């Protein structure tokens, strides 16, 4: 029978389970008094925070807020018609599609997804081909490489440094938000994002040392990788410089944002598991 974790109970009380899962959970709670007690404690925690009323907005607050906002309002232009934009976008997509199709049709590919040189001149029997394929795979995966030559975040051990240091948890949260934003936007960084990246970078070294002091090498490794990404982002040319750069997206392409984001989420997951124990 599957063990019920704290987050399953929280999901149950927050209505995040499917109907079937809810039914299953209800049955488990009826049968298991210990689990029911834990469930009741979570419910009580949620009840304690459910009914805090917010203050009523007074006329004075409204007037004050309006005066402040009014002072910063510029005259807006009506939205531009976007018909021409659609035409250009459609044309651009069509051109890209044609280029990709041409590339796919003309480029020879091997079964392992790599271009093959001089295919026509080689006589490859099925036995040879399979041996070559196995040899190639063997070459790539002969020994299991440690994560970036250091212990990675995939560990069953608790992320102690994160659990024990709320400031570090905040740092990782903020980093995840900023990197997610960067990975979902195109073009040069917004000044606000650039400022956040710079600040995160300055703080990052301190948190890395903190994680190392706690002996949490997995977290330290992730923070180290995060630092590399932040350095790349911080050094990225701004909009004006980008116009003169030979390869404007080179910096962005080199960053392994996805990998670091995944690591951050794994750390959070480890933190969750640790907290629930």
């Amino acid at each position, binding site marked *: 029978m599957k063990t019920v974790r704290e987050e399953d109970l929280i999901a149950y009380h927050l209505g*995040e389970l499917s109907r079937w899962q809810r039914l299953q959970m209800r049955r488990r709670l009826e049968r298991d008094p210990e689990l029911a007690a834990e469930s009741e404690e979570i419910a009580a925690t949620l009840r*304690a*925070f*459910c009914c805090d009323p917010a203050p009523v*907005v007074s006329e004075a607050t409204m007037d004050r807020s309006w005066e402040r906002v009014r002072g910063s309002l*510029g005259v807006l232009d009506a939205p531009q018609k976007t018909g021409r934009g659609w035409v250009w976008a459609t044309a651009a997509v069509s051109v890209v599609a044609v280029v990709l199709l041409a590339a796919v049709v003309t480029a020879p590919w091997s079964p392992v997804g790599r271009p093959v040189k001089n295919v026509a001149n080689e006589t490859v029997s099925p036995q040879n081909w399979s041996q070559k394929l196995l040899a190639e795979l063997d070459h790539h995966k002969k020994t299991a490489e440690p994560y970036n030559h250091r212990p990675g975040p995939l560990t069953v051990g608790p992320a102690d440094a994160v659990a024990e240091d709320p400031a570090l948890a905040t740092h990782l949260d903020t980093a995840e*938000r900023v990197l*997610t934003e960067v990975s979902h936007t195109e073009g040069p960084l917004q000044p606000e994002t650039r400022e956040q990246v710079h600040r995160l970078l300055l703080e990052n070294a301190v948190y890395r040392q903190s994680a190392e002091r706690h002996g949490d090498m997995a977290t330290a490794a992730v923070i180290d990788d995060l630092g590399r990404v932040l350095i790349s982002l911080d050094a990225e040319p701004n909009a004006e410089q980008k116009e003169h750069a030979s390869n404007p997206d080179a910096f962005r392409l080199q960053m392994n944002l996805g990998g670091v984001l995944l690591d951050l989420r794994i750390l959070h997951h480890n933190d*969750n598991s640790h907290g629930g124990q």
Partner: protein
Amino acid sequence: MGDVDQQAIRQVLGGDRDAYRVLMERHFATIFRVAFRITGNEQDAEEAAQEAFLRAYNKLPEFRHNAGFGTWVYRIAMNCALNLVERRSREASWNAAPLETKFGIERFASKSKHGPEQALLDGEAVHLRERAMRQLTPMERTAFVLRHMEDQPIGEIAAALGVPANSAKQAVFRAVGKLRRALRVEPRTSVPLVKEMR
């Protein structure tokens, strides 16, 4: 979206800045409420709400009319409030004092129907809950408040905070776990920490 909102938006886009007051008056209370719950105090809530309306104004030409203005500015406000809490959390003084003494404890002292002793206990319980909330990271706090107090769906929270849905959900779970432990471990007090509020 209400006709009043649409009419006001048209006027604003036509150059009438004062028409924006109509939109503010209709939606300010909701925006202030969510900002208050995220930031934990009236001053910051006011600042976040004002920033949300200012941002909404500047983005008004991009506003798609298939969504309600209220929903749209609410989403902007969630983000503004989170950013403000993040800024505050970097300031050393932010965690040093209770966030909302005036609205928290005195509220109970003045409104309790069960005498001064009960009012004191209620006030103490509020204080402890606020202390528990301060153990959350800004993202955890925001995600928790939006999911639990504001009853927003996870997808909406994730979109507003700019994180994947699973991250938002995990932030809520972490928050509840931390609050539970924070309220449980209180050795010196006899105040019922996790009790339903009236």
